[in-house]
C-alpha cells in the first residue's frame, strides 16, 4: 500500500512543475474560499410576482425598495440586510405584512388579495421539514 501510494506520489510530482503545484494549491484555496462565501448565503434574490406573472428579480444583498400598485392599493417590497419583506397597507388579513422578513430560499410572502407575491430564490435549496402543510 505504501509503495503503491509512494509511486503514485512520485508520478504526480514528476509530471508537474513547481508552478503547477503552487497553482493547484492556490486555485483550491480560491475555490474553497468562494464556496465558503456563497455557501453561507441562504438565498440569492427576491423574485416578485404580480397576478401570477414574474415581473422582477432583485438581488438580496443590495438594499432596495419597490412600491407596486396592488389591486387594493400600494404594496411595498423592502430588501435590507439579506432579507426581504412585503408590506401591504390595504388588506384585511395583512398576511403578507405579518409574514415579516424572509431570507431563506423558497420562502414566500404574499398579499393574495393584492395579487402580489415575493419569493426568495437562488442559493442552495433548503430542505423543508414538510412537503406541504394542510390548513
Amino acid at each position, binding site marked *: 500500500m505504501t509503495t503503491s501510494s509512494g509511486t503514485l506520489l512520485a508520478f504526480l510530482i514528476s509530471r508537474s512543475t513547481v508552478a503547477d503545484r503552487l497553482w493547484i494549491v492556490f486555485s483550491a484555496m480560491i475555490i474553497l474560499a468562494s464556496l465558503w462565501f456563497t455557501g453561507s448565503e441562504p438565498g440569492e434574490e427576491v423574485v416578485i410576482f404580480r397576478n401570477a406573472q414574474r415581473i422582477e428579480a432583485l438581488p438580496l444583498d443590495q438594499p432596495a425598495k419597490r412600491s407596486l400598485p396592488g389591486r387594493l392599493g400600494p404594496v411595498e417590497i423592502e430588501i435590507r440586510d439579506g432579507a426581504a419583506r412585503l408590506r401591504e397597507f390595504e388588506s384585511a*388579513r395583512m398576511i403578507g405584512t405579518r409574514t415579516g422578513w424572509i431570507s431563506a430560499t423558497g420562502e414566500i410572502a404574499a398579499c*393574495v388579495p393584492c395579487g402580489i407575491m415575493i419569493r426568495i430564490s437562488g442559493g442552495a435549496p433548503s430542505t423543508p421539514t414538510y412537503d406541504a402543510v*394542510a*390548513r
Partner: protein
Amino acid sequence: MQQPSTTMKPRLHPLLTFLIIFTILPGCSQPQTPHTTTRLVMGTLVTITTWNVPEAQERQGVADAFREMQRIDRLMSSHHPQSLLSTLNRAEENSTIALDPELALVIRRGVEIHQITAGAFDPELRALIRLWNFSGDQPATTPPDPQQLASVLKTQKKRKRNRLINQNPPAMSVGTGGANLDLGAIAKGYAIDRAITVLQQAGITDALVNAGGDLRILGSKGEAPWRIGIQHPRRDGEVIAVSEIRSDLAMVTSGDYERAFVHNDRRYHHILDPETGTPSDSGLISVSVQAPDAMTADALSTAFFVLGEKRSLTLLPDFPDVELLLVRSDGSLHRTAGFIATLRP
C-alpha cells in the same frame, strides 16, 4: 529533471487511478430533490411539487395544470362576475337553464353531500356568504346587521331549492330568488382533482398539488413518502400531526383560524352554519379529511366542521374511504382508525 526510464514503472498505477476516478465520477449523481412551482391561482397560493420528472416534461405538465385550475376558476368562481357560475346566479327564478357538464358534475356532488350531511354543507348559500363577506377583496371586519341576517336567513330557508333535472344534456331548474350558488367549499377541491388529472396525463406519477393548504398527492418521493404537516389550529408555524403519504390521496383541512375577525372581543370565523347563519359553533376548531378525491374532502371538511364530532362520526359510514382528524375546542384530538398521521405531542 525526470528521466523517462525512472517514470516508466509506475505508469500502470496512475492509469488505473484515472480509470477508477472517471468511472466513479459520473456515477455520483446529485440527490433528487422535489421541484416546486408556486402561483397565485383561484385567489390563493397554489404550489405544485413534482418529484423526479424530466425538466421539460415537468415544466409543461405543471404549466398545463395551473392553466387547468385557472380554467376551473373562470367556470366556478363566485367572485368573478364574468365566471359561468355568476352567469347562472343571474338567471331568473323558476327558469330552466342548461348547465356546463363540469359545473353540473360539481353541483351534483354538492347537492349529494348536502343531502347526506342534512344540510351542513350547502352549495346554495351565496346570499349568506356575501352578507358575511369573509373572502372578498375587502373582507368584513364587523358581523352583519342582525335584522339583515335574519331576513337573509329566512329567505334562505323558505326558498325553493334548485333542482337538477336532466342528465344529458345537464340542466337545472332555478330555485326561488335565483340559483344562489356558491361553490367556494367544493370547487377548489375539484380544481385540485383536475390539476392532478392533467399532471397524470403529462405522464407525471409523483406530485403534490397544494392549494392554500388543501392538497392532493400522487405517488411518493421515490423511496420516501410525502411528508405533510397538519397546521396547529392555535399556534402559527406549528403542526399537530404529520402524515407520511405514499399513495394517491387527498387531504383537506377546515379550521376556524383560516379567516376570521374580532369584533367587540368576539371572534367570528368563516365557516358558516347554514342552520343559524352564523359562524359554526360545534365544538370543533379544525377538521382534516382524507379522501380519494379533493372535491369530496373539500366539501366534507366544511360539513363535518359544522356537524360537530358526534354527528360527523355517525355519518362517516356513508362515506367509504373517508378518514377524519378532529380537533376539539379544548385542543384534544379524535382520529379515525384509517387516518394516516403521526400525532405530535
